[in-house]
């Protein structure tokens, strides 16, 4: 029973017409869910769960998993075209993706995100197939101190999100960290910064905040500028609508980086795709030969995070299928589905139901190909949206944002929050504060604080627990090195100046 014969078994399951059909249905639905902001894969799968009861169980999980990873493909579309993050894991894609669209390279950005998604998605499945059990065991070594170090490493990425001023970036990040504290404190059940509002007990909705800051803020800024006449340059001809060979070459490292970071972060039950996409963006910029251009529309800045959030889907299935442990909302629903269908998800699932696991793995290879074939032709079509005159486009952006944010919790309060964050986003742009740094603080704040407090509970308040464990020590060391980078660059530029002055 080696991987190859198992995979053949898997393909014999996945290639039956019924399974092929439902795989296609799943990925199409997933793409649609991803494109529409708000409605996420978790809610969609939950809604469709009853329909699967009459299906063959392997067919059912093939279809539902298709929605799960298909949504990661679609998430980039509105991020790139309209600066509206389609899914929370596509927030980082806005940074360079939207700038590319403004420069008339929307097609290239959409195309590269489909290609990166395909490559990383496939690597994710490969990882799931080959190293799932040992990886799951490794992931169990991650306790709160390791998560704390991972989140610190994530926060260190703020260095790469800063524009002109590091101080402004740090300030924005701190505001983000503060926003993350709003709501009920898990450890004491006390409410923090809720101003007596029941609706704030659950914290600030992440989608409402990001859509506000990115989409609404952008619209407000553009409205101000000279009637906003010509914002988007539209490339003519189909050739310019897809990434060039040079683009692909530029993204070689990004594909690799996104795949690996996404897969490993995805396999940790306490992290998530948003963390993975921020990390891979930071790594991409750290190793780039032109880091100063990030944020102005470089193609690697799209490829890395989009790859990461797709590889994450494969990674997230590792603890679910090998241990029966869900890492997030969507995998929790898949777990619920497995139980409902009569399986007992746990460490023995793969061994006792090889056709389920290998059928799913094989279907994910097929699904990723289907998604690529499906998404590439859509690129020129989607890019046409930008031909709309601004008096159509802006109301469209605002409309999609409102509907999307409302649909997450059916909450009008969230729509007001989006409006508030829109104003904040506008002010931040005017004052040149990097919005991405604030979002980074918001994403990580919750986990960071939690992991720190959990660690200190473990050690009875002894801070040494953070540095005397090998994994967390390594991660913290890398974070420290990243934080020193700007200083190192400054010193180098001083030296260069000094040498120049002397000569």
């Amino acid at each position, binding site marked *: 029973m080696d991987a190859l014969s198992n995979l053949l078994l898997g393909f014999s399951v996945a290639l039956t017409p019924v399974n092929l059909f439902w795989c296609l249905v799943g990925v199409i639905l997933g793409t649609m869910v991803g494109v529409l902001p708000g409605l996420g894969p978790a809610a969609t799968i939950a809604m469709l769960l009853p329909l699967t009861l009459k299906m063959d169980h392997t067919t059912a999980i093939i279809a539902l998993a298709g929605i799960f990873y298909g949504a990661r493909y679609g998430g980039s579309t509105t991020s790139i075209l309209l600066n509206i993050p389609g899914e929370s894991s596509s927030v980082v894609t806005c940074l360079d993706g939207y700038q590319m669209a403004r420069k008339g390279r929307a097609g290239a950005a959409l195309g590269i995100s489909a290609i990166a998604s395909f490559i990383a998605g496939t690597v994710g499945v490969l990882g799931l197939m080959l190293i799932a059990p040992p990886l799951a065991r490794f992931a169990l070594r991650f306790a709160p101190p390791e998560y704390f170090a991972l989140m610190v490493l994530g926060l260190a990425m703020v260095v790469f999100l800063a524009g002109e001023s590091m101080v402004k970036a740090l300030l924005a990040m701190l505001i983000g960290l503060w926003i993350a504290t709003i709501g009920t404190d*898990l450890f004491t059940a006390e409410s923090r910064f809720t101003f007596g509002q029941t609706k704030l007990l659950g914290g600030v909705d992440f989608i409402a905040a990001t859509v506000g800051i990115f989409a609404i803020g952008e619209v407000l800024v553009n409205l101000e500028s000279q009637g906003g006449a010509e914002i988007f340059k539209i490339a003519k001809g189909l050739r310019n609508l897809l990434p060039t060979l040079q683009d692909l070459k530029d993204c070689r490292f990004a594909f690799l980086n996104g795949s690996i970071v996404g897969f490993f972060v995805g396999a940790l039950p306490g992290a998530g795709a948003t963390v993975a996409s921020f990390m891979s963006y930071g790594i991409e910029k750290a190793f780039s030969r032109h880091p100063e251009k990030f944020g102005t529309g470089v193609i690697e800045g799209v490829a890395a995070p989009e790859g990461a959030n797709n590889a994450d889907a494969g990674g997230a299935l590792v603890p679910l299928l090998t241990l029966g442990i869900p890492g*997030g909302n969507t995998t929790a629903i898949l777990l619920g589905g497995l139980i409902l269908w009569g399986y007992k*998800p746990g460490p*023995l699932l793969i061994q006792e139901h090889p056709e389920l696991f290998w059928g799913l793995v094989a279907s994910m290879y097929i699904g990723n190909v289907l998604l690529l074939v499906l998404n590439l032709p859509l690129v020129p079509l989607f890019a046409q949206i930008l031909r709309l005159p601004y008096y159509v486009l802006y109301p469209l952006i605002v409309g999609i944002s409102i509907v999307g944010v409302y649909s997450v*919790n059916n909450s009008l309060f969230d729509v007001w929050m989006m409006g508030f964050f829109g104003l904040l986003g506008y002010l931040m742009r005017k004052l040149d504060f990097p919005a991405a740094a604030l979002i980074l603080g918001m994403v990580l704040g919750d986990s960071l604080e939690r992991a720190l407090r959990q660690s200190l509970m*473990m050690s009875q308040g002894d801070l040494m627990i953070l540095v005397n464990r090998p994994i967390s020590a390594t991660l913290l060391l890398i974070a420290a090195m990243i934080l020193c980078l700007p200083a190192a660059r400054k010193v180098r530029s001083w030296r260069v100046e000094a040498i120049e002055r002397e000569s």
Partner: protein
Amino acid sequence: MKYRAMGLPMIIAVLLSFTFNRAWSQEFKPSKQIETVVHTGPGGGSDLFARAIAELLQKEKLISQRMQVVNKSGGGSAVAMSYLAEKKGETHTIGFFTGVWVTNPLTTAEATVTMKDLTPIVRLVLEPAVIAVKADSPYKTMKDFIEAAKKSPNQLRQSGGSVTSRDNLMRMLIQKATGTQWTFISFPSGGERLSNLLGGHVQLMVIEPQEAGEQIRAGNLRVIASLTEKRLASLANVPTIKEQGIDVPLIPQARGVVAPPAAPREEVQYWEGVFDRFAKTASWKQYVEQNQFEDGYLKGPALSKFFDDLTVQMRDVLKEAGAKVVR
């Protein structure tokens, strides 16, 4: 005489059937989709439970309208409960409660809606819990663990949910009964709680038998006590905590259905009828068994009393546990 004797009951019968008919025509029957409120996001315990019940009710053809699950997560159960309170007078909205709906308003000042405000309909299940350790840990019984905890106070650790969760309250009660102390670490998701136990970062966890079942079978976990009155059928060789000489009150984890405040009598009767029939179906019994729940069917005044008693019990336990009780 005979005719008369027959006639009177006939007339009464006819009259009665009239009144019944009128009562019939006034009987409540959902005329549109039923909004079903849960306090967790998609994939949370309450969400999955509500979706499963909705599915089974439909499968058994006990309801004519679709149940649409609406996720109102946030603030424990506060957001969902205040949403239900706002729906006063709406007969097509119901909610799925858990024990959190009783404890949360006790500790959260902002959570102004309590179970007293809502209309109880039915309690469906009680979720049993067990105490699990890693399979290779030295603790074979509760006594082993308690002794170890006595030897090195606060050095042992338990993973669990929020401080007001049953996990933590049971810990508080056991600590008090045995004069020991160990640390409780909160994790928001069940996945993290379990992976920290499997990874050996914590030594103990209060877990539902269904969640532990597969880990036990795979040889990853060992159950050292059940937090139930009687031994569980699926874990017949595991003694209850009381059998092991630790006499603590057991906190029930209930799940069931409530309606918005002051729901009309007819609506309550309709749902009671639906669930009466439902509780007798084979698919319900199978669901209860599959998830290793205890059938906790209860309605009417008995259910109101259950909520009242539970509120009093939880207030005491929370105070004892040192939590801030606000009402």
